[in-house]
């Protein structure tokens, strides 16, 4: 994280975002232990020769979404976010919950066992939440995670056997890019000069 890129809390306004938040409340994320994936190799219409391989890759994406949901939860409970930012965080978290649900459905379609979320405490440790001291810190963390997620989804598409899941991953990447773009605008950072930035 580059300190010169961090803007103060006061500079981040609702107007800076490209979307408006919802008024939904955040729920506490589920507490469960990460479990391994044993696959029954059930067939799925349209799936190619190795459904277990696709299910494994989709489960990794599911782990990523669990972490994203937890990250927004940690941010919401930090006490550092002003109301406008909190509302946008709630909206983005709801998108990640939608991603999670779609990925769970996909893993099950392939006969796999969806990986479960870890505890909020484990995610807080893994994400270095104790280092977050301001709204600006949180926004920079979110920007990094959203960029990484967009790139991760795009980078996995060639490894998927079933192009239906490739299409799903492209849609997920687009959502992550939307979040990243909104967050970059919120902190007043310039967008990339070059095309083909993601992937």
């Amino acid at each position: 994280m580059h300190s010169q890129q961090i803007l103060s809390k006061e500079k981040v306004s609702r107007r800076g975002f490209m979307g408006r938040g919802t008024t939904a409340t955040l729920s506490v994320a589920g507490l469960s232990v990460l479990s391994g994936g044993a696959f029954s190799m059930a067939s799925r219409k349209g799936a190619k020769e190795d459904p277990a391989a696709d299910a494994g890759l989709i489960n990794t994406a599911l782990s990523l979404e669990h972490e994203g949901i937890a990250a927004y939860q940690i941010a919401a409970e930090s006490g550092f976010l002003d109301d406008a930012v909190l509302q946008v965080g709630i909206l983005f978290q709801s998108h990640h919950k939608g991603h999670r649900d779609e990925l769970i459905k996909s893993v099950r379609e392939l006969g796999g066992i969806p990986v479960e979320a870890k505890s909020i405490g484990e995610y807080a440790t893994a994400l270095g939440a104790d280092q977050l001291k301001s709204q600006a810190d949180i926004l920079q963390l979110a920007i990094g995670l959203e960029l990484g997620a967009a790139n991760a989804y795009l980078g996995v598409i060639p490894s998927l056997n079933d192009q239906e899941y490739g299409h799903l991953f492209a849609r997920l990447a687009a959502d992550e890019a939307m979040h990243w773009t909104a967050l970059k605008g919120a902190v007043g950072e310039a967008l990339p000069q070059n095309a083909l930035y993601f992937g």
Partner: protein
Amino acid sequence: MILTILCAAALAGAAAEDRQQIAVMQETPAIEGDAGRGEALYQRRCGACHSIDQNRVGPMHRNTYGSKAGSVENFAYSKALDELDVVWNEASLDAWLQNPSAMAPGTRMGFRLTDEQERADIIAYLRTVSEQGEAETN
């Protein structure tokens, strides 16, 4: 019986071909990496799942370079990684980042990094942080 022998021979041939393919893939890259560029790229390309000092979706990377695949403590690897008999160096990391599934079928990492220079830069960064980690240990 003859069919069984033919099938076995064909499978053995295919396995040998796979091993040969991996061996070919694991040539040391000709491009030199830049660890400074690699640090920024690491955040963009790998940061969704990995950190240097924390196990997350994927294992931490502090001492990855020079270590055996699947050897980070307290990380639950797939069977594919547990069984992968590889030590991470320029050649093996380059092959891995090009196509993890080809190197370890069944791996849960499907991310492919197609740009050769980006791979070299990230590998240079991983080597640097691993050497730093080793120096701090000694």
